[in-house]
């Protein structure tokens, strides 16, 4: 009787120990798009009636500079602009933004902005609305 109990315990303990050895399988949908991702992408993307890609990139750069960002990197062939700024008045938090400019059709330009706060992506739609409002001014309001 006692022996059987002990044997049972040993088997269970062994099973538990062995179970620990199996590596957790990565779930199949690790890279699959989720609803939240689709939503944030629509928030981050906007198309404008602009023909000239270079002009659009220059407008993006000017808008970022107006907002007080430091342009870190620009790549014309890829339509890429990377910029950062401090979350003034504190100089410990950094806000980074990457903007890509892509030709959608002959007279339409697709502009996508990704912003991060320190190392966390910003998902607040308000942030992107504000950015695109500034960009719009920079794109369409001709200055003296």
């Amino acid at each position, binding site marked *: 009787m006692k022996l059987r109990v002990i044997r049972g315990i040993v088997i269970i303990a062994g099973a538990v120990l062995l179970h620990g050895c199996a590596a957790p399988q990565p779930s199949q949908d690790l890279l699959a798009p989720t609803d939240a991702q689709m939503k944030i992408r629509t928030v981050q993307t906007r198309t404008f009636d602009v023909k000239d890609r270079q002009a659009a990139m220059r407008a993006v750069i000017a808008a970022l500079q107006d907002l007080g960002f430091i342009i870190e990197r620009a790549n014309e062939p890829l339509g890429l602009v990377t910029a950062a700024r401090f979350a003034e008045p504190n100089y410990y938090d950094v806000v980074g933004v990457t903007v890509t400019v892509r030709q959608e059709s002959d007279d339409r330009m697709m502009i996508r902005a990704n912003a991060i706060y320190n190392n966390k992506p910003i998902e607040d739609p308000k*942030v992107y609305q504000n950015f695109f409002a500034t960009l719009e001014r920079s794109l369409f309001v001709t200055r003296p």
Partner: protein
Amino acid sequence: MRRWRIMASGFLLASQLSGCVQPTQPEALFQLMPESAAHRAMQTRLFETKDERELLSASAAVLQDLGFQVEESVREVGFLRAAKERSAREHGQDLTRFFIWIFSTPLLFLQQPPFMMPVDLHQKIAATLVARPLNTESTRQEIRIVFYRVVWKGEGMSGNQQIAPGEQRMEMVRDPGLYQQFFAKLSKAVFLEAYTL
């Protein structure tokens, strides 16, 4: 009487809480501020020329004259990034450090070492510059430059606690003098007058 006490403690709590600084909300950082226009005016000059390339290469030359090393350049969008590293030692800071050390020597009676304030040791001054045409015929160009700096602190001592060197601090340079100096040199280099906004 009791009510007074509750009110007083309430005020005390409120005053303590107000000491906590609210971090800036990200959406505020993507909005034009009242001071944005002033910063733009300080950082921007206009040049009556068609030659954007000449303006850009002259800017690079002026930055080199000022001791900067060009780190990145993209001609197609008129972009330049340059930096220089210098010592950040200032006599004022060393004096403050000395006096704080002197005044904290009585700590020795408590068998504590005096306080040694860390001072700024090293800095990197960086500039990003963008040139862009302002009208469709591109007879007028705009140059906008932004200076900023990163400062590294040296070591210090507080109580028995060693303050390790290498703490970093960054700031935008908002001194109009530096910008004026740069644009004066640039307009001399391209033989053109620099117009303000």
